[in-house]
């Protein structure tokens, strides 16, 4: 393979060490060529390095190293699996391996579901037009080498084509059993014009997880995405969403993160059709006392059409040495008039040990737009805390009430009521169990 031909230098040595452990999955013609192209791109960019502008706040070392740090699987038996009260089509991966027996029959009217491991073998497939394509588009102006690594080596993933309104959500559950698992999964989703799908994801997946999800939302289609990243303290994850939005389409994504030694969630959205709407939200709850916690949201939204709306709402609650990172950019291209861009990133620091590093960016080349960004970090409001306590609410419970209140604006971005209620009640019970 081309790896041995790389020039000898430290960055390339690191890359070849990383690649030495990876196996290119057996693929049909289109997937094979997409993977070869990705390998060539990766060889040109190398792995992320600390000097890279978008890796200044998050050390890529543990994501780069050839063998992941082990992570003990987390015992979730103190609660029902998340989303279990939601009627859904379940697709289950254990350490990145699809578990057919545990999964539901993926028959859902208006939705075609297959696996990358199968679809990649077929010579002509709708996913060929998207696999690695949106990812490649998302590499400019900021390189995202871990996504390219994923396109090259992803062992499996889900291919979903939606032609109508899905009657219920599709749920991808990532179970984690092997303390040394290193998983790369790549999903491709295409919503045909007017289609509507809710996709939920949950679970830790692996000691180290790398996902790419490419989503094409065609004219008038709507994609809702809700994700809960698993309570495992030791897991590491680099996730990527690349989405392209057509005219009058809707894209909404919410991620809940509690625990995790390292989480980097990247979201790259191209708003290409007029009157489209993109909402991205995240709520993170990190306690350094329970284990390392570093959580990074990196978002890049490009507006290239008229009268579109984008909204970013990211909230993090940090304590005991937890670190939160937010890097959010809104780029408004020339001619993308009447863009309404909103970006909010806030951290609630429950003690003096925790930190929030934020880099909000606006780059605007159109003159008739409304874009705003606000980033704050602060302690809990002592006056409000006293008010609650003076009514008999014990200090820790009062603090939790205010934590939930702080996260509420992000949680409100979840459109589906049952899913939103599930996330909400879990947060409450996790906070309560922490107190007990």
């Amino acid at each position: 393979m081309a790896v041995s031909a790389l020039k000898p230098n430290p960055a390339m040595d690191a890359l070849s060490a990383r690649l030495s452990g990876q196996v290119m999955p057996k693929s049909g013609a289109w997937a094979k060529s997409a993977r070869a192209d990705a390998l060539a791109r990766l060889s040109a960019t190398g792995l992320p390095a600390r000097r890279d502008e978008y890796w200044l706040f998050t050390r890529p070392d543990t994501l780069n190293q050839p063998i992941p740090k082990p992570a003990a699987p987390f015992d979730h038996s103190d609660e029902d699996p998340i989303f279990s009260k939601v009627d859904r089509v379940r697709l289950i991966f254990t350490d990145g391996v699809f578990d057919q027996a545990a999964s539901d029959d993926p028959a859902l009217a208006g939705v075609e579901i297959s696996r990358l491991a199968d679809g990649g073998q077929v010579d002509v497939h709708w996913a060929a037009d998207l696999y690695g394509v949106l990812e490649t588009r998302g590499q400019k102006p900021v390189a995202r080498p871990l996504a390219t690594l994923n396109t090259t080596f992803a062992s499996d993933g889900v291919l979903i084509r939606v032609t109508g309104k899905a009657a219920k959500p599709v749920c991808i559950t990532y179970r984690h059993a092997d303390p040394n698992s290193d998983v790369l999964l790549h999903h491709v989703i295409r919503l045909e014009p007017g289609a509507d799908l809710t996709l939920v994801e949950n679970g830790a997946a692996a000691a180290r997880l790398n996902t790419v999800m490419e989503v094409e939302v065609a004219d008038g289609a709507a994609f809702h995405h809700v994700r809960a990243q698993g309570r495992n303290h030791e897991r590491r994850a680099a996730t990527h969403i690349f989405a392209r939005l057509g005219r009058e389409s809707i894209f909404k994504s919410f991620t809940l993160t509690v625990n995790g030694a390292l989480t980097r969630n990247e979201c790259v959205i191209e708003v290409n059709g007029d009157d489209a709407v993109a909402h991205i939200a995240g709520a993170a709850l990190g306690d350094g006392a329970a284990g390392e916690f570093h959580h990074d949201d990196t978002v890049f939204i490009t507006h290239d059409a008229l009268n579109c709306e984008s909204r970013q709402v990211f909230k993090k609650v940090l304590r005991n040495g937890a670190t939160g990172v937010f890097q959010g950019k809104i780029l408004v291209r020339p001619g993308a008039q009447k863009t309404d861009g909103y970006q909010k990133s806030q951290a609630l620091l429950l003690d003096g040990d925790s930190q929030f590093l934020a880099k909000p960016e606006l780059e605007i080349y159109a003159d008739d737009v409304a874009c705003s960004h606000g980033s704050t970090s602060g302690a809990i409001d002592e006056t409000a805390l006293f008010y609650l306590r003076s009514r008999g609410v014990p200090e820790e419970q009062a603090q939790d009430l205010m934590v939930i209140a702080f996260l509420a604006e992000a949680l409100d971005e979840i459109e589906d009521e049952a899913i939103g209620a599930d996330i909400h009640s879990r947060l409450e019970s996790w906070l309560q169990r922490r107190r007990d």
Partner: protein
Amino acid sequence: MLNIKGLKVKLEEEDKTILKGVDLEVPAGMVHAIMGPNGSGKSTLSYVLSGRSGYEVTGGTATLDGVDLLDMAPEERAAAGLFLAFQYPVEIPGVGNMTFLRTAVNAQRKMRGEDDLSATDFLKTIRAKAKALKIDAEMLKRPVNVGFSGGEKKRNEILQMAMLEPKMCILDETDSGLDVDAMKLVSEGVNALRDEGRSFLVITHYQRLLDHIKPDVVHILARGRIVKSGGPELALEVENNGYSDILAEVA
């Protein structure tokens, strides 16, 4: 009920003594009023009794039914039966008024070793009490005090008091920011709670509130001490002549 002896308090952050030996006893079932010029320490007294941080007690005691208040956390004082109606009720975005009240009621019951109030009983009770204070369902759903008018905030304080049923109620300038009608409504709410087993300490600048909430005893707090105590006529004297005569008399 409430027994304060020689209470001395200074600000934690600066070397400034606010209360210089307050003596005050409010027996069960009584309404006592505290009046006094600006800066005399009225609000400090209410905050120190309810446990707000930032104050340091340098001497004296304060007990509620014989239990030392000053040693307890704010929530413990509340569970013991103390309630402070804030001069400036705090806005808490994101926390629903109803959730807040239910959490508070049940937290106090838990601390007292009682069972939670069921959702149905809670709703029934709060609806009846809210109606009497002209607080509509919409206000109950909104975040605590967010977007409330001055009058709505004060009515909400009285609703909390009615739901929590404390033994000892401190009203810190509850009349401030109220128009005549709102003051009447709030006072009616307070009077409805008057009971043999419940006492009130009404802190105010103006005699007007005391026309509605009739006190048994009026105290004048000045320069960190209770300088004079008397019947309701003392409030009228303040209203007519200001504090200067009284202060001159006790100087």
